[in-house]
């Protein structure tokens, strides 16, 4: 697809790996002490891959238990630990760090910056994550086990009815929060301050735009999460009663504060994926992105609305009717900017000279499947209907459509898109296509039937279920195992690239791709844009 492209710097270099003299530090200290945005991006991405499989194996336990009605493999308390830690690991360990890793790698390349604005703090942000997850995962081996209150750790499950693991969970979340806030500050300052001359706001690639807004959301809501876990800690260990009616507090207050964090968090996990898709679709449709300005405005609108919709997670808690209506309508409003985005992606493809390499396949799957998740979200937004859907598998289906076929597919698409730039070799297209089709079929086997069992009333977070759900659940579990296995193909693809097995990639890599990152050699030299490039025209 790209043989005719010129290779600006390394075309004369022989076929060894580091064509440019990079002054790359060697050995383990390179990774421990690094201040290089590419090294740190790599660390983030590998860590999130490890966490994807950690959280994924917990999902496999869940699906094995639910393969048949009745209790087969694990006791209910352990089942609850699995659902809880699966959620926490996937949200804070897999999806968020993967996006931060992509931002670390790509944002400086896209805006022509020499590195991140605060390179040492960047390293600190990363290394806090393994520390946080060591604390969190250590609770699996402690007496009484890991947290089992669900990833949303509702009180009183996380206070009155929890074991000692709550404190470990709280401090692990504090470390994750510090990491996220520092990571977000770094990204936002980099974008504000380190853009190359001429890289004006409305020339920024959309991935950069979505990350500015995501970083703002992170800085705004991660401290609120820190506040709410602190209140959980003091309620459990220091006798406070923030969430205890006997002392004048309210368990529902927990849900308000949690979801004030939690709903923007949902957009933190999807906006960067929007940015990735907005980079990929124009490249493979060989057309500029349709409606660039409206994409920026839509992203900002979604971020703004994310602060005033939180209580749609709490329709059944007995809020006043006025509040239910307010949150119902604001939630439905989000469909407008999201619809703008989906329309723009489709319009970008319209009459494009399209090719269907793996990144594009995942991007198209993202557009279709994320939209399904969006539609089920719209159904959930309808307050009276939500009374039926609340806490059923319909909700599970909804948020896995937006987080697996949305966020995760977006990340995977981004990895396929940029891995030639990172490693200097093309991934195996056959392996990529195989990974895509296996994932596409299995993920829909896994999550689509959940809509039906949910509508029929199967509750979430329960290790057993009524007999009429047996066939569906067996089918779902098979889909789950296949989806888990399919991701091994992804790992194979990644490691083939890391070991430089494959066709050498040109600097341009993709014929239709535009942006600064395609003007530097593949693999990207250790240091890039130490002198800022001159940006002339267009985005």
């Amino acid at each position, binding site marked *: 697809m790209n043989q005719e492209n010129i290779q600006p710097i390394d075309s004369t270099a022989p076929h060894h790996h580091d064509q440019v003299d990079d002054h790359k530090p060697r050995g383990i*200290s390179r990774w*421990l*002490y*690094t*201040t290089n945005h590419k090294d740190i991006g790599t660390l983030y991405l590998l860590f999130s891959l490890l966490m994807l499989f950690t959280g994924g194996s917990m999902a496999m336990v869940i699906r094995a238990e639910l393969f048949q009605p009745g209790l087969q493999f694990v006791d209910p308390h352990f089942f609850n630990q699995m659902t809880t830690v699966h959620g926490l690991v996937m949200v804070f360990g897999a999806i968020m760090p993967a996006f931060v890793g992509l931002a670390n790698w790509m944002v400086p390349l896209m805006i022509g*910056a020499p590195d991140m*604005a*605060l*390179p*040492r703090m960047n*390293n*600190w942000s990363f*290394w806090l994550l393994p*520390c*946080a997850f*060591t*604390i969190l995962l250590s609770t699996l081996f402690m007496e009484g086990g890991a947290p089992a209150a669900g990833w949303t750790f509702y009180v009183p499950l996380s206070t009155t009815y929890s074991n000692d693991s709550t*404190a*470990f969970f*709280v*401090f*692990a979340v504090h*470390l994750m929060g510090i990491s996220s*806030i520092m990571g*977000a*500050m*770094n990204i936002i*300052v980099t974008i504000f*301050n*380190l853009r190359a*001359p001429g890289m004006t706001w409305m020339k920024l690639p959309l991935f950069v735009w979505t990350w500015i807004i995501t970083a703002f959301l992170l*800085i*705004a*809501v991660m*401290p*609120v999460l*820190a*506040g*709410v876990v*602190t*209140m959980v800690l*003091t309620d459990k260990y*220091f*006798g*406070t*009663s*923030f969430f205890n*009616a*006997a*002392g*004048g*507090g309210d368990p*529902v*207050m927990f849900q*308000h*504060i949690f979801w*004030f964090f939690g709903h923007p968090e949902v957009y933190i996990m999807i906006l960067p994926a929007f940015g990735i898709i907005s980079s990929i679709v124009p490249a493979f449709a060989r057309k500029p992105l349709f409606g660039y300005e409206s994409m920026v405005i839509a992203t900002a609108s979604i971020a703004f609305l994310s602060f005033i919709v939180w209580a749609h997670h709490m329709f059944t808690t007995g809020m*006043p009717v006025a509040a239910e209506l307010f949150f119902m309508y604001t939630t439905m409003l989000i469909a407008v900017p999201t619809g703008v985005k989906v329309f723009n992606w489709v319009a970008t493809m319209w009459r494009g000279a399209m090719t269907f390499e793996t990144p594009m396949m995942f991007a198209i799957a993202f557009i279709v499947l994320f939209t399904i998740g969006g539609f089920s979200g719209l159904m959930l937004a309808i307050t009276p209907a939500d009374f039926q859907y609340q806490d059923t598998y319909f909700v599970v289906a909804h948020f896995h459509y937006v987080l697996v076929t949305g966020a995760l597919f977006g990340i995977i698409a981004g990895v396929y898109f940029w891995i030639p730039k990172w490693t200097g070799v093309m991934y195996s297209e056959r392996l990529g296509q195989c990974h895509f089709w296996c994932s596409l079929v299995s993920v829909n086997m896994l999550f689509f039937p959940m809509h039906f069992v949910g509508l029929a009333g199967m509750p979430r977070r329960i290790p057993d279920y009524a007999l009429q759900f047996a066939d569906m659940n067996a089918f779902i579990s098979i889909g789950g195992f296949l989806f888990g296995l399919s991701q091994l193909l992804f790992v194979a693809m990644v490691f083939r690239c890391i070991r430089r097995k494959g066709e050498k990639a040109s600097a341009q890599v993709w014929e239709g791709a535009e942006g600064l990152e395609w003007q530097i050699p593949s693999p990207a030299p250790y*240091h890039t844009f*130490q002198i800022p490039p001159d940006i002339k025209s267009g985005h």
Partner: protein
Amino acid sequence: MSAGYQHYYVPHQSHWPIVGAAALFLMGYGAAHWVNDDLIGPILLAVGFGLLLLMLFGWFSNVIDESMSGLYSEQMDHSFRQGMSWFIFSEIMFFGAFFGALFYARMISVPWLDGAGDNAMTAQVLWPDFEAIWPLIKTPSGLETHAMPWEGIPLINTIILLVSSITLQFAHMGIEQQKPAQLGFFLMLTIILGICFLALQGYEYVHAYEELGLRLDSGVYGNTFFLLTGFHGLHVTLGAIFLTVIFLRIAVKGHFTAEKHFGFQAAAWYWHFVDVVWLNLFVFVYVL
């Protein structure tokens, strides 16, 4: 490219961040053990805290050395300024969570427990004798306490913090107009006022615990009172340490010029931010 281009300094490796990560790991892991009454906890926490201080000292030393040797461009200065601004914004949101809890308790949960809105049955079934008042000096379960009046120490403390923001501004003018005596005097005065605030706050806590029976676990009034004033006091402490370090850098090392003194400004921003938080505290926790 253009002639106006300044090199953006990217440090070559540093071992301080991973020391910092290890420090926070030990502190978090130790604190979790401690609250579960495991005696290894305080030890881990103390080791982690020591490591954190070491890290801060080493890291800031590097930054100061780099800055003094002229490695930092104006662009780097912008990075520091923007980074500090976003950090303060994150702190505002952290306090926002606790103010949110205070407002929710006052406006919603306490009135609802007394039957406000359509919650008459809640009140009847749970605690029929409960009366919604704020400050909540008698909880639904019957725990009694006393409210902290705003006259007296809280008012004095408000004045102290307001004055300290003004004296800090005089110190800032001292640095800008190159009047070292004014700078030193007013910076020292600011720090002393901060310490006075903390001492009075400590005295107020003793008074609350011993005479008023107002404790951390005295229902949602005590909860919000102590967590809000406690986290604020922690921030005053950090701010005072920050200012003291700046004072020592000026007095001992002779750092900062009339044009370049971002370290001073960052400390000042932080101090003013802490002051504004206190004003909100004074109004919403004490007066209203």
